[in-house]
């Protein structure tokens, strides 16, 4: 008994050690960013290793006081949430149609939608620039919302569709005989049932959007529409050279909101990621 109990205790310690090491490994880049971001600039570019780093808020003051970082952050958040909203408003009905209605060419259409993800974004960069310029949308958050939404719409539709396919058809038949219209069925039966899928798709779309760089750079030509990802690039050029500690700190700031969102909805996310794949999971 006693030896068994000790063995179980040892197992537990080993388990924690392994998991702890893995967590540390995953968090290493983040901690490294933080450590760079909170040190004076001179200490970062010195070739000698430093064992006792100096703590400094230089970069922190710099990004908030010398740069309109609050505005960039606001731009990022507005553009990202707006784009996810557009994706859901368009993607949910599209997914429902692709999952449930019978019509000619349905599977082809589903494939065309997905195929928009298959080309390199740079190919359409110039046409899109002209398109937005002619529409007078350059340098606005609206343009960013639209472009992020367009980039993510295909897989948001596909993820949500795969969840809808897992819902038993009986449920809709029951609602239909109970007297519900198609829109009612979508709103009251389908959407609540696939909420984990909607959350999963939204989070993935957010992560893609926050990391988007190419189109943001193209469309945002002044700080009016700069986002965090483009702001990062500001620290690499100019007369000041590459400002590593500011880059690291901004990157960390861009990471934190996503991290918090994922932690908050972790339960739905893990359930969502498996439920789409395993029937009845």
């Amino acid at each position, binding site marked *: 008994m006693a030896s068994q109990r000790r063995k179980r205790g040892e197992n537990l310690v080993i388990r924690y050690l392994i998991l702890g090491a893995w967590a540390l490994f995953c968090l290493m880049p983040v901690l490294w960013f933080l450590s760079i971001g909170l040190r004076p600039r001179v200490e970062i570019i010195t070739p000698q290793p430093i064992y006792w780093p100096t703590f400094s808020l230089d970069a922190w003051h710099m990004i908030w006081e010398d740069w309109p970082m609050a505005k960039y952050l606001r731009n990022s958040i507005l553009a990202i949430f707006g784009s996810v909203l557009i994706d859901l408003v368009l993607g949910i009905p599209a997914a429902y149609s692709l999952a449930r209605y019978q019509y000619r060419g349905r599977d082809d259409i589903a494939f065309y939608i997905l195929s928009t993800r298959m080309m390199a974004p740079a190919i359409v960069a110039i046409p899109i620039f002209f398109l937005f310029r002619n529409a007078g949308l350059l340098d606005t958050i609206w343009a960013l919302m639209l472009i992020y939404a367009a980039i993510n719409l295909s897989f948001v539709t596909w993820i949500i569709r795969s969840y809808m396919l897992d819902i*038993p058809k*009986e*449920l809709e*038949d*029951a*609602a*239909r*005989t*109970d*007297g*519900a*219209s198609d829109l*009612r069925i979508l709103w*009251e*039966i389908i959407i*609540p*049932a696939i909420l984990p899928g909607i959350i999963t798709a939204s989070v993935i779309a957010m992560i893609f959007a926050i990391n988007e760089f190419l189109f943001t750079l193209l469309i945002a030509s002044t700080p009016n529409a700069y986002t965090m990802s483009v702001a990062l690039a500001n620290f690499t050029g100019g007369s000041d050279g590459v400002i590593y500690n500011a880059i690291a700190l901004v990157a960390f700031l861009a990471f934190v909101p996503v991290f918090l969102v994922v932690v908050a909805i972790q339960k739905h996310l893990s359930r969502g990621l498996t439920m789409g794949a395993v029937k009845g999971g």
Partner: protein
Amino acid sequence: MARIELNGIQKRWGEVWGVRDVNIDIADEEFLVLLGPSGCGKTTTMRMIAGLEEPTEGEIVMDGEMMNDIDPRDRDVAMVFQGYALYPNMTIYENIRFPLRMRGVPRAQQDAHVRRAAGLVEMTDYLDRKPGALSGGQRQRAALARAIVREPQVFLMDEPLSNLDAKLRQAMRVQIKHIQRELRITTVYVTHDQIEAMTLADRIVIMQSGLIQQIGTPDEIYNDPANTFVANFIGSPPMNLIEGEVAGGVFTAPGVKVPGMPAAVSGKVTLGVRPEDCHVTENDINLTGEVYGVEPTGDVTYLTLQAGEKLFEIKADRTYRAPLGATENVRFDADRIYLFDGETGERLR
């Protein structure tokens, strides 16, 4: 109240036939059971009555009104599904209230309706639970309450008991029949379970391969089967069907000899006799075979005899016992013998 006519109903998906030709006249307040093996078209027939499938040919008429192009939500039918189909995100109360809300029943009246329906199926204590927190039997009762809550013209039930264990199924069967009688609502019930069909139905429709084999009361179906399919499908254990020849008024098959056949019958014939109409005896012997199996169940003993290649089921007395391999003689009740055409399987009368 509603009378339903199905006139020449066909359902085809491309080359695949679901229902070939169905004509049924369902009386007001009738309890009609569609019975058949899986894939026989019974569920498709029901779904067409609900409006969830459109017939390829034929007419669905309710109370004289043509229903073919009417949406399910505009037909006054309620359906109970095999998998219960309760809305997982709603409580039982909200589930039962859903049809009332959809059909615009005034808010003030909804609560009373929900509580009455829940009371009828004894689910009042579970109204604030979600379907996930209920057992199979409770879910089935909740689904039943959702169907009866707005007192529709027609109930449709698609194998509602097939996911329940035997004991619960028996209890629910009684409850369903009781509720149907009390509410006096025309009911169409689909099942592949002959016991459910026999116990619930006013009339049974037996289907196979999209065609109706026979329509009749449980008594007629059991005692007067139209063909070998019906004879074999109803009854447990099923009727013994013996392929043989009639010559000079005597039916013969390996181990079987039955005299007194009608004069008009000769040639290849299938003789049917139910296990309970066979008696172990030493006089007027019709069948001689070897004991293949003896299964005492308490109130009756099932005896299986082998004659030639064929096995025969006999319902023997509950005290009956015999060693395997022993030779046993059996007499058939002469007035309980059925004759079927050897080729078509149709009954010879």
